[in-house]
């Protein structure tokens, strides 16, 4: 070994030690300043509400305020891109909605970030179930009835969604594919905008978020048929899952928290621990229950596996549906 190379080894060892040391130091100091939680949607929407419910509790547990930063636009890609380009230090987190990694890669021609390698998973947060509702004039009472009606009169039924690639749209596409039926998708700019045509019966059915549909179901303006999750919802316990009729049917908006890829492992673990603790706080649980969302929780590895699984599922649904624009 020459002197130069011996010096090189020494240098490498020293640098390595410093590196390890700073890594440890980061984890011990973290967080030393406020943390930004990027919500890629406008304030007041579903994801924003959930983020605002958890952020004060997370801030309390971390000892630093968690500040919500709404960066809406382009189907969540603008907000996602902010995190993809941020420093990997755990001070810029992303409230991840399905668009970011699970659906946009197959719907959009070009993303400004890499959906696979730019993010480090932290925690699976919640699932927002959809409910299958029909206008009362539609003579169906169950999923089976609906499938029969769709087969008897192919191409006459319309279903509304809150937009291309939304959970309500893809739930409908999955339903069409699993039942081999034809229905026309009518897209709106958000659930609120779709309500009017749904309530008048211009559009016969929808797979929309449970909490938005609940008052209309209770008032009898819409008839609920089933939920899109494999389990029943505690909010409407009488409603069977679509999966009872169509085994394996599972479609709901999955939300989670991620950081920029390359964030030190101890930081990820700390965030995962505190977020899991937040999900167990009774106040948070009550709020989620009243919103009809189901909290999940788990390890970063659980999340990673789920992202891979769901991404594969939606890739297939989108490709078969032809929803990807030319």
């Amino acid at each position, binding site marked *: 070994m020459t002197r130069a190379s011996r010096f090189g080894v020494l240098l490498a060892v020293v640098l390595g030690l410093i590196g390890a040391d700073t890594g440890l130091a980061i984890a011990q100091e973290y967080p030393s300043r406020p943390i930004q939680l990027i919500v890629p949607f406008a304030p007041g929407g579903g994801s924003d509400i959930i983020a605002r419910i958890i952020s004060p509790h997370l801030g309390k547990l971390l000892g630093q305020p968690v500040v919500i930063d709404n960066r809406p636009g382009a189907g969540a890609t603008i907000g996602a891109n902010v995190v993809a380009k941020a420093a990997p230090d755990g001070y810029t987190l992303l409230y991840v909605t399905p668009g970011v990694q699970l659906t946009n890669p197959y719907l959009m021609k070009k993303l400004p970030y890499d959906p696979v390698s730019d993010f480090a998973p932290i925690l699976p947060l919640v699932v927002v179930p959809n409910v299958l509702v029909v206008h009362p004039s539609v003579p169906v009472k169950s999923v089976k009835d609906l499938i029969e009606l769709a087969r008897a009169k192919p191409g006459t039924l319309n279903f509304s969604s809150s937009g291309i690639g939304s959970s309500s749209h893809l739930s409908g596409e999955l339903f069409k594919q699993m039942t081999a039926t034809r229905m026309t998708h*009518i897209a709106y700019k958000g659930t*609120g*905008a779709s309500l009017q045509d749904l309530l008048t019966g211009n559009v016969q059915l929808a797979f929309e978020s449970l909490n938005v549909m609940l008052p209309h179901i209770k008032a009898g303006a819409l008839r609920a048929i089933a939920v899109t999750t494999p389990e029943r919802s505690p909010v409407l316990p009488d409603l069977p899952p679509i999966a009872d009729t169509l085994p394996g049917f599972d479609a709901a908006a999955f939300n989670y928290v991620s950081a920029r890829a390359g964030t030190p492992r101890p930081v990820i673990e700390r965030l995962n621990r505190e977020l899991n603790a937040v999900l167990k706080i009774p106040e948070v649980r009550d709020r989620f229950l009243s919103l009809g969302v189901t909290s999940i929780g788990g390890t970063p590895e659980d999340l990673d596996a789920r992202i891979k699984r769901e991404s594969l599922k939606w890739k297939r649904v989108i490709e078969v549906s032809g929803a990807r624009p030319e």
Partner: protein
Amino acid sequence: MDLLANLLVGIEAALTPLNLFYCLAGVFVGTLVGVLPGLGPVATIAMLLPATFALPPVSALIMLAGIYYGAQYGGSTTAILVNLPGETSSVVTALDGYQMARQGRAGVALATAAIGSFVAGTFATIVLAVAAPPLANIALKFGPAEYFSLMVLGLVASVVLASGSLLKAIGMIVLGLLLGLVGTDVQSGTERYTFGIPQIADGIGFVVVAMGMFGLGEIVRNLEREGGVTLLVRKVTNLMPTRADVKRMVAPIVRGTLLGSALGILPGGGAMLASFASYSLEKKVSRHGSEFGKGAIEGVAGPESANNAGAQTSFIPMLTLGIPSNPVMALMIGAMIIQGIQPGPSVMVEQPRLFWGLIVSMWIGNLFLVVLNLPLIGLWVRLCAVPYHLLYPAILVFCAIGVYSVNNTEFDVYLMALFGVLGYVFAKLECEPAPMLLGFILGPMMEEYLRRALLLSRGDPMVLLVRPISATILVMAALALIVVLSPAIRKKRQAAFAEDL
């Protein structure tokens, strides 16, 4: 009587000291953000939303509603004083309001807006109390075909917004339609004219265009005109309207109130049309038609009344059906959900205190607004006396902050600067920005509704004529087109004769 009993419940709920306080706080904050250009009620309500978690539901909604109509009100102040319409509804207020301000009649314009808004607010509140459920059912008669026809009517009427050349006005409308095409197509998800820029993937923001074309363009023109050192207004005349002014504003206020109340009921964009429709109507029926665009008091009184009436009645579909008319209503529905109230048909029955309390608070809020704003007029008018070289940097800064706050992106600020240049160029060419803005607002909605109507009819265009409401509106549009075109043809002929002589 049922109504009296219900109103009593509402008065009881709204007149508690706590709720009075939140009502006042709401209209005060609303006026403030309305006055700050660009900083709209959506951003404000979103910021204050978490703070309302801890409040009782009635107080929370009273405050949020106050912010909403307070901002509608405040928005007209900047439109009149510095030609900055921060809301779609105040675009037309800027047309004549700003000209009045330039003539030293800013005080009169502001007072007219205040009086008109109050009268309209009072009437619309009564409508809300007396007839909310039956009116909501009318709203449900409107499907995509009806909304498309309504937008056509609005677009035809928008030609009237221009006071100059008809050809240029149509050119500007088309330009607005084209700008409106930018963004992601709702039905197919295809991006159009976005050039891969994610910041415009959802389209160009209204505030960006309006601030640039109106506000920045006007600043450049003012600097050019006066060398940038003199005052905006040479002499301020009377602060309050004279008897002659009052006489001229009565009929427009009445018509604007009725028109705004009717359009506000339609959740698919009705309230937005209210001020435009009222302006077009006033310009056509007024004996002072030639003064429009040059400071006609009717051009402020009508649209301001229509706008406020529409803002109030747009609560009808939200409270009785749970259908939001605009992003602010969607946020309020979000606030109700967080409070554990399910917005929808059951609110009136299950939450009478909330429903009637909110209605009564709206009237109280409108009263607060007048009391709050009439004394402020003197202060605002003095703002016009600030040397322009001190005033315009402040306007620029507020514009930049406001535009940034909509999406939290600096890209919008640059885009606004670009539209500022465009605004200046068009001003030089004597092309007016108001028709363009209307094309920009209505175009995308019209397309969306047309495609949805055709998608639902499986491609049959007759759906627009078979449905009676849609057909009626289209006939009205055709009539309006004839009315709009005829005087122009006459005028052009006269001009041609004049040249011959």
